[in-house]
């Protein structure tokens, strides 16, 4: 099927069921709990001469994580209720979420490389343009204005220097 042929019916299709997601997340949490448990076991979770060892508190905390996520996992596996069959996320919804999440990831990468101000301006402009269908002549001035406002707010008024990035593109301002 051609790419542009994604109908609204297609968007309503469930990607993954509630039950599968419940099982997956509980399993991940169980794995986390087990790793923490092992790590605090290695630290020492017993009673030393000078009181409880470093791993004492984390040990019991991770024990609780294991028990509780194990119970959630079991409940999810054993459950046959209709609620479990319900959709966790539909195709259209996932698209919307990824449309925000992926640019947000790129935005953070952008901050790392070119600093908060420049990355914010590009991010806001692109977001408005691609997701909000705004023309460039509206999105670019607004995005730049917001970024300049941030710049004055933080660098000038509050005197809180923000991250300028690996390649400092705002170095010429002297802040």
């Amino acid at each position: 099927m051609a790419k542009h042929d994604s109908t609204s019916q297609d968007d309503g299709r469930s990607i993954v069921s509630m039950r599968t997601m419940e099982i997956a997340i509980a399993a991940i949490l169980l794995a986390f709990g087990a790793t923490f448990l092992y790590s605090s076991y290695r630290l020492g979770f017993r009673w030393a001469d000078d009181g409880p060892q470093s791993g004492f508190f984390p040990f019991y905390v991770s024990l609780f994580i294991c028990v509780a996520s194990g119970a959630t996992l079991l409940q999810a596996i054993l459950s046959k209720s209709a609620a479990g069959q319900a959709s966790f996320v539909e195709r259209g919804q996932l698209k919307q979420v990824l449309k925000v999440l992926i640019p947000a990831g790129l935005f953070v990468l952008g901050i790392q490389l070119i600093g908060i101000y420049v990355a914010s301006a590009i991010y806001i402009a692109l977001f408005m343009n691609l997701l909000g269908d705004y023309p460039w002549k509206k999105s670019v001035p607004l995005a730049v204005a917001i970024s300049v406002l941030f710049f004055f707010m933080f660098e000038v008024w509050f005197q809180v220097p923000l991250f300028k990035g690996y390649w400092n593109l705002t170095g010429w301002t002297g802040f």
Partner: protein
Amino acid sequence: MSDLNLLFHGFAVVLTPFNIGLMFLGIVLGVIIGVLPGLGAANGIAILLPLTFTMPPTSAIIMLSCIYWGALFGGAIASILFNIPGEPWSVATTFDGYPLAQKGRAGEALTASFTSSFIGAFVAVLLITFLAPLIARFALQFGPPEFFSVYLLTFCSFVGMGKGSAWKIIVSMMLGFALSAVGIDIVTGQLRLTFGFPSLMKGFDFLIAVIGLFGIGEILLSMEEGLAFHGVPAKINPKVVLETWKKLPRYWMTFIRSTAIGCWMGITPGGATPASFMSYGVAKKMSRDGDKFGTGVLEGVVAPETAAHAAGTSALLPMITLGIPGSPTAAVLLGGLLIWGLQPGPLLFAEKPDFVWGLIASMYLGNVAGLIVVLSLVPLFAGILRIPFSIIAPVIVAICAIGAYTVNNAMQDIWFMLGFGVIGYLFKKLNYPLAPMVLALVLGNNAENAFRQAMLMSQGDMTIMWSNWLVGSITTLAVIMLFWPLISRVLKAIVPAKPDKLSEQRPVE
């Protein structure tokens, strides 16, 4: 009566032009935060907290707590005019608020909601004024076991009073504790749970978690539901306000009931959301117009709003007296106190009376200022919701990123924030509550220290938790709370309860 003198002294502290300016700034920012879905009180304050590091602590707490009041007011605007709750505690306000607005009575609904918010908050502040010094004086005798038992009660209450799966509440809470333990153990100096990653040495800052979980997570959820908001126009003028005020005294019983529910749920860590639902449910049951609830009756707006504000405000009582916050927002404020070098708890009253009484005085003035601001500026705030989400969403993400960076001036925190955002989205969808995680992350170190000290006192003997009547009764209550899901199931088997449709609509926080 020395407390009253201290309160008046507090008013004197607040009534400087600088502090009053900050108060109004805080209220306006707070209402904006409350109106916008995706920006809540907890993460809004978390983002702005680093900007207050250079201010005097009293001015800073005045501004931040005013953001909180503003957000409590603002949630109602989105609920009534747009049928989208700006905050979880205003979900119950949509039940009758939006139908009223559709009937063209938006002005009435808004006035009723703001006024009842104000009354709920006002009673809660009165409660704080008279109860806080007493509790603080009493808590001065607390030793490590007592403090640990209070922590235990706080966390067990989440299990006992929370909604949804008890296992999920425990997982979320314990995950918070585990994350708080990451990094250098301050007692022994050992590295814990860092798995050899030097970047984890400093541990996870709860502000980052709050900004990610509530900010980014919320944006992802809002995206899923689509971008367009359809609102009802807001018209509010002095005539409507006065006419509504004439009607409100009729609901005096609802006010009393809702305030009592709210104050109780706020002090015990039930929080504003369950309080608003419980209050709506009780009002529906007790009211003569009970059947008309949901079609647009004023009482259905009064009940949840009064309770939500009373709960939101009284959540600060355990925070300033014991150092134990009753809500995620109170937890963020508590984090602020720690950063400003103030140790919340009973000693605060003795050592920093200016700060404590300035804060309490600002609660009175802040709520009056809030009422004036929201009543006069409603159309402006409603206008914010008409800005398309495709402009607001990237700006909120950028603000979250800036906020996350300013906490420790660390780039990696922005990545952590994004990670917490994904966790927040997944957890919200699977009904894992987020509030216990945030509170555990904030209180983790304190709770662990109290536990360690208590254990040192008793040489590892757990029975110290029952060593006197005070610590014993708190611990016992905590244990009952922890097993409440089981106990209530047994009780239900004996006395079958009627299915509660209302509570199904309550969001898991």
